């Protein structure tokens, strides 16, 4: 949360003033919030969602929610942390709506089927991340980049912390393979 707090002042110099403006229903306040957080919110959504179109839809839904609910934002917390949680929840909701492939059997089948090819595969990180199944990619991003705990991820996904941990481990095993980082011998 400390990192999120420092992000507030980095993304929005006058966060307090803008929040007060938005809470008063001033459209300029809403737009200032959008302009400040548009990029990080889209980046988060794009890393979780399957397509750019989905990510843009989630970006829009996130800011509609932010503008509607800004009155509920408690100013003792991080504004970015609050906006980010809305965005992450919306993106995960989109994954569920699109009926993501979250069965390990199916994932393992796909990966095992490609295993021989993967042995010679060397991807860059961006491509490897993109290739991960949606849920694994979401867990990797939320945990390793955004800094959510397994318990927080589990809460947002409606799963257990163990589910989050095992998804993260599987994802790293695949990334390691696809990136050609397998230990020799």
């Amino acid at each position, binding site marked *: 949360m400390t990192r999120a707090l420092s992000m507030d002042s980095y993304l929005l110099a006058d966060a307090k003033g803008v929040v007060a403006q938005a809470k008063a229903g001033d459209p300029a306040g809403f*737009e200032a919030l959008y302009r400040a957080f*548009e990029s990080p919110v889209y980046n988060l959504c794009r890393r979780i969602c399957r397509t750019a179109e989905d*990510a*843009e839809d989630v970006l829009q839904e996130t*800011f*509609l929610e932010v503008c509607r609910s800004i009155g509920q934002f408690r100013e003792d917390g991080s504004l970015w942390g609050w906006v980010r949680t809305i965005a992450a929840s919306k993106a995960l909701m989109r994954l569920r709506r699109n009926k993501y492939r979250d069965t390990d059997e199916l994932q393992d089948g796909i990966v095992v089927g490609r295993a021989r090819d993967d042995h010679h595969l060397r991807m860059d990180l961006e491509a490897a991340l993109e290739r991960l199944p949606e849920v694994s990619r979401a867990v*990797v991003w939320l945990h390793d980049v955004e800094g959510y705990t397994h318990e927080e991820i589990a809460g947002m996904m409606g799963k257990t912390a163990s589910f989050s941990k095992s998804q993260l481990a599987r994802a*790293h095993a695949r*990334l390691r393979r696809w990136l050609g980082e397998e*230990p020799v011998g």
Partner: protein
Amino acid sequence: MTHLTIEQLIGQREPGVEPGDQAARVHLEACESCRAELDRLHQRVARLKALPALRPSRDRWPVIRARLVAERRALRMQRIRRVALAGLAAAASVTLVVTLRDVAAPEPASAATEISRAMERSRALERTIDLYHPESRVLDGRTARIAQEIEDRIAALDRELELLDVAEDAARDTRQLRLWRERVGLLDALVDVHLTRASNVGL
């Protein structure tokens, strides 16, 4: 020698100590291969964090703003409809109360009581005018003319009231009440003329 699993390695990066962490730590100190694997994990996470930020291909703000404006307008209409409904309900309940009062309310105050109230009000207004000492004040022509006109009408009413006092009429109380109420109205107007001047009275 059994090396650490990827889950155990990730566990080393987590805050807090879980069962098995201590044993994994001891193994890490002794195993160069696992330490190298943990380094690779650290580097992978660092590279993930360093990936370039992706940006939307188009500005979504105009769409969001339009949606917000539409929602606000719909909310306002909803409020107006709610207030209108509440108004209709209030009007309906007032009608009901009035109807019920007409049916069941006690008789209104008698004409005699109403007359004495009007007389009392009339005296109070005369006292107010007396306190103002109109005879010692200089009025402009228009104000003086209006005041005179009102005083003449009051004098005419007084004559009618005197005549009614001696009349034997079934509707005497009703007529007397009407005259006294008219007198109160004229005195009110006279107070206004003296205190606020004719320009504000609108006569």
